[in-house]
């Protein structure tokens, strides 16, 4: 080592005042995961398209009369499988009902099943996954084994069984039939996420300042583990709409309700002569499911800083 003397330069106090540093920080735009995600989403055209689709479906579900003045249940057998005509842009079903009006009135069924199933999945899946991941040990063993059982029955088959024996087939029962089994995947995803989050410093800090274990879970661990949950639930909403339509298509779905799945099932016998009554509800169904899945995918990208950096 040379015997060079090292000079330390210490800046005079007025040159870097702590006050100035704080001021700079305060004037900067606040940034957190959600703001970053929002900034990312705002720049993506696909986000607006998907959002518009979701808003249209929601509007049709709540205010179908905004979109059509035709009664979806009115049938005129003279127009069975009829071609489009003024006021009836998509033509008529086999029964002679207006296809467009039935699509508009079917939106509420799909949306209701999607949202209810999402809620049921979340209400069961979040506590199961959170408690198993955070407490570990015996709690984890018991909850995860219960989850394994539900996870091991393909949820569509389970829904078929439930709906087959269910005496009343309505929006609530079908949502329970789907969500009652779909939660197991959500619980697994959340458990894995919490296993990573719970060893971070701020969790230790929270316990060190005397917050209870459960308080720490609710206040710090859970909010920081919600990203994959939100993505999963958005995509699950789309999947539930598909499941409802498929169950209705098989004849174990909803009774006496206008539903895209029911209409597609009814139209399949006349697929050769009048494909329109099968095609248009299928388009509505596919676009709605696609909108929710795209939203979920965009959220996944936007909420993951690593994915943002890769683009």
């Amino acid at each position, binding site marked *: 080592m040379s015997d060079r003397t090292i000079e330390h330069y210490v800046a005079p106090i007025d040159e870097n005042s702590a006050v100035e540093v704080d001021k700079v920080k305060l004037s900067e735009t606040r940034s957190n995961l959600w703001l970053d995600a929002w900034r990312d989403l705002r720049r993506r055209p696909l986000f607006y398209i998907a959002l518009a689709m979701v808003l249209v479906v929601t509007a049709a579900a709540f205010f179908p009369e905004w979109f059509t003045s035709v009664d979806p249940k009115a049938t005129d057998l003279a127009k069975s499988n009829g071609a489009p005509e003024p006021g009836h842009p998509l033509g008529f079903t086999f029964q002679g009902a207006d296809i467009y009006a039935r699509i508009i009135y079917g939106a509420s069924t799909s949306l209701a099943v999607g949202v209810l199933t999402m809620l049921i999945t979340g209400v069961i899946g979040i506590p199961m996954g959170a408690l198993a991941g955070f407490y570990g040990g015996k709690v984890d063993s018991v909850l995860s084994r219960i989850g394994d059982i539900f996870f091991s029955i393909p949820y569509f088959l389970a829904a078929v069984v439930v709906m087959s*024996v269910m005496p009343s087939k309505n929006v609530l029962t079908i949502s329970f039939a789907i969500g009652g089994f779909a939660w197991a995947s959500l619980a697994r995803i959340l458990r894995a996420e919490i296993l990573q989050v719970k060893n971070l410093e701020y969790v230790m800090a929270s316990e060190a300042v005397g917050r209870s274990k459960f308080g720490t879970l609710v206040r710090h661990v859970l909010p920081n583990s919600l990203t994959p949950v939100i993505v999963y639930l958005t995509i699950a909403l789309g999947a539930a709409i598909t499941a409802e339509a498929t169950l209705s298509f098989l004849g174990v779905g909803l009774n006496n309700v206008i539903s895209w799945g029911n209409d597609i099932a009814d139209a399949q016998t006349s*697929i050769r002569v009048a494909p329109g009554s099968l095609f248009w509800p299928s388009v509505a169904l596919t676009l709605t499911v696609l909108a929710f899945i795209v939203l979920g995918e965009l959220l996944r990208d936007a909420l993951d800083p690593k994915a943002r950096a890769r683009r």
Partner: protein
Amino acid sequence: MLMYVVRRLLQAIPVFLGTTFLIYFMVFSMPGDPILALFGEKTPNPAVLEAVRAQYHLDQPFFMQYLHYLQNLLTGNMGTTFSGQEVSDVLARAFPVTLKLVLMAVVIEFILAVVIGLISGLRKGGIIDNTNLVVALVLSSVPPFVALFLAQYFIGIKLGWAPVTVGANTTWSAMFLPALVIALTIYVTGMRLMRGSVIEAQSADYVRTALAKGLTRRRIIPVHVARNSLIPVITNTAASFGALIAGTTVTEGIFNIPGVGKVLFDAIVRGETVTVVSIVTILTILYIIVNILVDLLYAVLDPRIRYV
């Protein structure tokens, strides 16, 4: 490895008991007479009714009923369909057809996932990559029964390129269209796994070494990049094999393919819930078995799994 196999099999026992109990519980804890509920809106023939009552031992306590049901299940006695055939016979005849359909779908899915995933991964962020992602996303959002109807209408009826329905003629070529449609609606997951691991592999040390020692891209991409990226795609494909065996109901119903799914489809449509419950139970057990095999396959392919 042996320890891993034993542990994995032991873990499956509670899952097996739990799932069968759950299915049984769902059916037989419904309010009212469960046997009448099983027949839905139909009025059963008294002889059939008695046979079903005897089969399910409803005069005994609930837990004993479940044990009888389990015993029947393990001895292959799954009752009869409404037309008097043994459910186990019907399934034994239908199973090879389903296996054929699912195998074909899974092979197509694997090829699509590997080829498209590789191209996307090599051209990360480019226009081809983005198009691939969007196309896969759209295809995976189309509800399977809609996709099947569209294929049936446009390719089967309009163009006449494939049989509209399969029926008794269960050759590979007759079932190609439904298998392709299934593959198209599920390849997205495998494709993404492939794309992700190709991107990762391109910056891996062994690929840099191969480049440094002067190998050409033509050799590095198939031998070093692609081969090492296959593990997650293989296990994903194996997992979808299980899901497909349990989920061909709609496909086989629409294309009239006489497999297990079609048996289930008919039973659902006719409201033969007894048969529905038996088949769902069998499919669930199959699903569990395939999932165990997938886990074992994973352990064979990736030694790190065994020691967790």
